[in-house]
């Protein structure tokens, strides 16, 4: 690839409001970081509600938590960390401009994300069968405070549901990127869409890293 070719590719990819490709990349990256800050605050509202209610009803929350399938939760944590690895590799190959490898690792990331959602769906199904979905037919064995236990499961479904929604959106974004990558849109001079999609994907991962212990593991230290 000649120098003038790189230059023209660079100029094509710079939108009219920016002076340089570097400025455009800085703006995109900062924009994504700020978006992630808003996401922290968005999830933060629910983490706050969780913290308050858990401090009100520690025992009920512990008992409700122990009904979750920690093994599946742990497997899913590992699955999600693997997807972060493939995402990093996709970004890495985007920086190098290796078209086929970008596509490969984006698709791998999506597939592993799909596995996570599949396991999650199975867990939700289990909860449904066990009458652990908040509502009129809710029942948690051996728990005196049924209402408070429902509160735990309301938060469980709201938080994991919102997290799963973010995964679905993430997979949607990666699909678009994979198509664009296949068409050869990304080069060492222009790869920031893959880069900032990576930021988003890792963020969604990190949310899960907090959700897993707070939802699945809080009764582990309690006397049985």
């Amino acid at each position, binding site marked *: 690839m000649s120098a003038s070719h790189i230059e023209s590719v660079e100029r094509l990819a710079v*939108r*009219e*409001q*920016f*002076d340089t490709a570097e*400025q455009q990349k*800085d*703006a995109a990256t*900062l*924009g994504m970081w*700020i*978006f992630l*800050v*808003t*996401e922290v*605050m*968005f*999830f*933060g*509202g*629910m983490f*706050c*509600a969780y913290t*308050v*209610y858990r401090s*009100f*009803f520690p025992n009920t929350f512990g008992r409700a938590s122990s009904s979750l399938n920690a093994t599946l939760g742990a497997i899913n944590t590992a699955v999600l960390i693997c997807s972060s690895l493939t995402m990093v590799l996709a970004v890495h190959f985007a920086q190098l401009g290796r078209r086929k490898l970008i596509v490969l690792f984006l698709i791998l990331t999506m597939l592993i994300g799909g596995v996570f959602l599949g396991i999650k769906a199975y867990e939700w199904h289990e909860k449904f069968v066990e009458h652990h979905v*908040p*509502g009129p037919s809710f029942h948690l064995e051996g728990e005196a*405070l049924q*209402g*408070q236990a*429902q*509160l735990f499961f*309301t*938060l469980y479904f*709201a938080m994991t549901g919102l997290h799963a929604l973010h995964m679905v959106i993430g997979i949607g974004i990666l699909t678009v990127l994979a198509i664009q990558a296949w068409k050869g849109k990304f080069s060492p001079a222009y790869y920031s869409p893959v880069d900032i999609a990576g930021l988003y994907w890792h963020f969604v991962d990190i949310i899960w890293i907090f959700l897993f212990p707070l939802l699945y593991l809080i009764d582990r230290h309690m006397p049985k």
Partner: protein
Amino acid sequence: MITAAAEERQTYLNESYGIKSWLLTKDHKRIALLYLATITLFFFIGGIFATIIRIELLTPRGDLVSSETYNKMFTMHGVIMIFFFLIPSIPATLGNFFIPMMIGARDLAFPKINLLSWYLLVAGGLFAIFAMLAGGVDTGWTFYTPFSSSYSNTYVVATVVGVFIAGFSSILTGLNFIVTIHTMRAPGMTWFRLPLFVWAHYATSIIQVLGTPVLAITLTLVGVERIFHIGVFDPAYGGDPVLFQHLFWFYSHPAVYIMVLPAMGVLSELVSTFSKKQVFGYAFVAFSSVAIAILGFLVWGHHMFVSGQSAYASLVFSFLSYFVAIPSAIKVFNWTATLYKGSISYATPMLYAFGFIGLFTMGGLTGLYVAALGVDVHVTDTYFVVAHFHYIMVGGAIMGYLGGLHYWWPKMSGRMYPEGWAKLSALVIFLGFNLTFFPQFILGYLGMPRRYHVYPDEFQVLHVLSTAGASVLAVGYVIPLIYFIWSLRHGKMAGANPWGATGLEWKTPSPPPTHNFEETPVIRHEAYDYAALMEEEANVR
């Protein structure tokens, strides 16, 4: 010469025509005008509800509307005015239009996201309008649980969805501004050469980005609770309604600063331009905006002194609330000091600026009353509080908005508004405003509760005064609507810099070309450097 050239010259207004060229535009200036039209519509819709409220309160008995309808009137007045007018008002119109121009950029960093944020506001507004037409909502703009989640039999979910969507409009605007101010400044435009308008919007954007998501998730939880009948804030399940209040005010107190900080930014521009002096204590005014944004997040509990939160929490919130007075006072003192030995002119924008300083000071000082624990218990949920926040939001934010609109109108439209009419309406608004809301301080102090449409006979005189004032105020708001539209065709041509102002936005022709600047400007002077401006003009001659 300018007039003749303007007919030929390509501007952002005549660059293309047709509805599609507006609805699909990515030009921040056109999007600002889309916002301007939208929020003007919402302002007058919200005004209709205010009119019904004030007419009902003319007499001590409920003659015009039932109590249920009255509840819906003040709810929809609040929801529309706050979420669909005040929050987007200055940032989405004047900020959108002028931040890129002030920093020497061709557009915001993300023009498509900018357009998206307008569509989100419209979509949210449609939900709110649907809720109004379908039967209204009666929770108060605060959506307090458990009333909103369990008991209210009105269109809470549609309204909440509307506010949720409009919230994302606000988040995206804030995000766009922060990124733009960080990455798009022209060469030589250092942080401390930025106009104070930009600093104020930077602080506002921080609040929008940090606060709004919390409101979004809180309203989502209310919606979830309402739709699925599961307890999130419902005491029957062990849920805590006061938690809702905490989450709600975590956004909604800082939201007050989303409304008033941009107006403070406008004020700095107006006071400097119309006294031809550099703003006194530039760095203090700039940092006081940031200080207000930060402190604003630490005082939400002062809305909840009677909610049953712990007395110690109330004590701390009360104490911290007083700190907000410091940066606010810094601004007021510095604007006043800017006037000292300035060459002051009394053009319409400056009249609004004076109005702002006076009314904001009153609103701020009465804020100290309600931040004091003992006094607040006496005036909680009375007209004293209503008067206090209208002095900030109407006397402060709307005065700033109208001042800014008059100031930049020549740049936006290329034409002058009629100065005589404008001065008259500024005066009418000032008098009407005070007549409307000053009696409400007395009413509240005497014990008139807010959100009631019947009241004891002895309050009638003050209520009649207030309603009379509201009528005057309404006239004051309609006059500018008429003459602004009139001026689009018949106003005098403005020229590039009718006020002799220093900002970069005045260095382009009026109205500006699509890309704002022929070439990226290079900045060599501090903000508000009138000596440098005069030198430049002398060189041109």
